């Protein structure tokens, strides 16, 4: 009988231990979206004083499951013209906004920007040349020359690849690696 009492006491003691300390909160720290990119920014200039910035901004990071705000600028350029383009990636969820481009340039050999135009030629197209190099003199394309086609509408896809297996690729599939960002801008040549 005594043993049952002992067992009962152990049980009671244990249940107190289990329940006693449950008042304190266990607040979850705000999760950090690792290396978040919210914005792909195109800065387009030319010798005749043209200077425009086009944003492709998606609030959604990798962790969210509901559609956030989306802001996509039309890339409006003149037909048959040469432009200097620079692409930047930003994390605008932080304040002040963080320029991720610096990290990309620091690790330039592990990154590649890929530009694709639809259509590839003719009205509404853009062709690309003179892409900038990485620290091992292979393509990075953070800066590139745009040559616009005849007047018309099209689209421009800018993809940032991480650890590409082929640095000379002109499409994301050829490049291998992992897609860090992909922006599709509507193009209006007028």
């Amino acid at each position: 009988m005594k043993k049952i009492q002992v067992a009962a006491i152990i049980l009671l003691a244990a249940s107190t231990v289990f329940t006693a300390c449950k008042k304190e909160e266990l607040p979850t720290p705000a999760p950090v979206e690792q290396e978040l990119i919210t914005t792909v920014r195109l800065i387009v200039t030319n010798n005749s004083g043209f200077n425009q910035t086009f944003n492709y901004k998606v609030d959604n990071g990798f962790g969210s499951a509901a559609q956030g705000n989306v802001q996509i600028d039309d890339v409006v350029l003149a037909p048959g013209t040469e432009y200097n383009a620079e692409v930047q990636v930003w994390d605008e969820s932080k304040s002040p906004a963080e320029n991720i481009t610096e990290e990309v340039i620091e690790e330039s050999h592990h990154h590649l920007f890929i530009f694709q135009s639809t259509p590839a030629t003719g009205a509404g197209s853009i062709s690309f040349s003179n892409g900038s190099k990485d620290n091992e003199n292979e393509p990075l394309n953070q800066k590139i020359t745009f040559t616009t086609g005849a007047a018309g509408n099209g689209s421009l896809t800018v993809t940032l690849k991480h650890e590409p297996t082929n640095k000379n690729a002109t499409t994301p599939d050829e490049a291998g690696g992992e897609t860090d960002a992909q922006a599709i801008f509507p193009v209006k040549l007028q």
Partner: protein
Amino acid sequence: MYRTIQVFLLSLCIAYTSVAQECNLNINVTVVEKHNGRPLYPVVAHIDELGATYATDEKGRFAIDSLCPGKYTFHFHSAGYEHYAEQVTIGRNTELKFRLAHLEGTVDEVVISGTREHGLLQDRDELSSRQVAAQSGKSLADMLQSINGVTVLSNGATIAKPVIHGLYGNRIVMLNNGIRQEDQQWGGEHAPNIDPFLTNNLSVIKGAASVKYGTDAIGGVVLAEPPPLRSTHGWDGELNLAGLSNNRMGVASGVVNHNFKAIPALSFRLQGTYKKGGNYRIPGHWVANTGVEERNYSATVGWKKLHYGAEVFYSHFNTDLGIYRGSHTGNEADMLAAIRSDTPLVPADFTYKLARPRQHVVHDLLKANTYLDSRWGVWRATYAFQHNFRQEYDVQRVETDDAQLNLTLNTQTLNLNLEHNQLWKLKGEVGVDGIYQENVMQAGDRVFLPNYRSTGAALYAIERYYGSDWTLEGGLRYDYRWYEAFNPEGRNQQVVRYEYNFNSLSGTLGFTKRLRDDWQITTTLSNAWRAPQANELFSAGLHQGAARIELGNKDLAAERSYNLNIESKKRFGSKLSTDVSVYTQYISNFIYLEPGADILTIRGYFTVFNYKQTNAHLTGTDLNAAYAWNHKLNTTAKASFLFARDVMQKDWLILMPADRLSLNTVYTTNLSDKLQECFVSADAKYVFSQWRIPANFDAIDYPRPPAGYFLADVSVGGRIMFNKQPLYISLSAMNIFNQRYRDYLDAFRYFIDQPGTNIVLRLRVPFSFNEHQHQ
């Protein structure tokens, strides 16, 4: 290469045949109560020299065949009985009778209920210590695959979790040394953290088994049981070594047992395992970043007197695992490119080095238990503390040493149990369970799970009524579970507190009858339930292996399962024995992922998969037949079929194991005094392509389930005796034809083939120094 070694081993065996002595003795053992001679059931018998464990049947009997002449030390364990050890010299076929004394010495009703390890009548299959040792180097789940009805869910060759009758993960419970393993198995890429070398016995209970093992045991239970501590003074132990060719893996594991001469009640065991492998190889290619390293150890101290005892057990599991670089994709287009490619997109050479993505997991278990024999029965109290720390290192743009996920799960459990002595014709156990759990992330971690805590309590009773040639078992359990989660939500990541309460009854009813001496039928009806898990309630993130977003559902209700299992074990003459089991299981509120809307992220569009509930109906059968051509040549055939339906959609359930057939033939012979138990064995397995897929499969998953495949394994080995010192050696070749294949339940099926040929050399050296031997 393999052939040469095989020929070498065979000729080695043949070289010794000159003084051949046959190991063909058959021994029948009966265990009875010392005072009235009634048979004892169940009694666990362990034989040191064989490293094997037997259990008596209802008539107190078990048989050992193909035994070599020699000296054997028998140990007997049964609840309520004194531990008994005796050394016996066996030279011819014989009947042995052992008498065990009840601890009280005065009680007349002596037949004691099932031990804790053998408590349920449910369909149960075991791997003995020998079968475990014969597979050393494999993961726990891979070992269990040799049990009919058990398959694996894997992420390549290094991460695998067991699947029982189509259910896995949080729908099955794993017991590590009697303690429910709580180790953060959130997804398919989270393998159980148990060192298989800890156990000498792995068993699987198929079907719902909540009454005894607690909530969540909808699909079944995996039990990893270490052997009992040494109870006669002296030293013994074992050294296991394995070398695997495919990933150039080495495994070493050792265990030492001691019982003190001066303090006979005191025993201890020390055990440790080290394992290191590099990139593994699929036909034609190395797989980038798939190395593995494991460092595990454990210590047990026991104090065992006649009527009471106590034991403290501590184990540490520590692993580093690489994950194939090509399986983490940036968006759907990356994933499709990887699927379309016939070869791995990330090229690699062999290396032991791990890069990102990788995991580091530590699991500690501290267990203290005590028992007391009284005239009521055996009282037991068990307390356990588990600490699980999981780190995940993602691919990062900027070089860093930090892990992107640092999750800690601490669990405390307490169990009090009374295995009561016979009351009329009833035997059984009653008990209470308590659990307290906390799961926390670190500041700076990426989105995964909110912090949460949970407490639970349960009451249970399982009783058995023994008839002449039948047994009826009934069990009832009440569980209460409380959860509290702190989920950061919205733009400001405001922490919102959620509270959940679940409580439910579960039950089991089993009946077994021996129709004739050679035919036994067991029927069990059981139910189980499972509260939704934190990731099912709260997950809101990208699943990088599948390029999709998984969205938790805070309104999920508990899953509830009803399971009927009928098993027939029948022998036909002395050569053929069969084991047929048929099961059907209805699960209400079955939680699954359903594809929903696409959302635009900076990497492109992703499909959001929502956790939903439906009713599921799983029916299947496991068929086993063993045929002994003679006492040296044995063939076993197995087949397993599963039909898993979504009752509400009137459709098949996704991601269920395909049907499979297997055939094993083994030839065992003793070639001489020096070369015993020489064996050659061949295994063939055919896995069908899974054609039972939902109608909307193409919208959810791509590509279709892979083709069926055929695999062949061969093994050769034996026991070499150096004087009295045995050395077990074996050489095996898995996937001997270097077959290219993919498996539907492997998450890497999208990217790469399964591993190619793997040649394994295994050595096992048991040793024993008895200072005093029983006569």
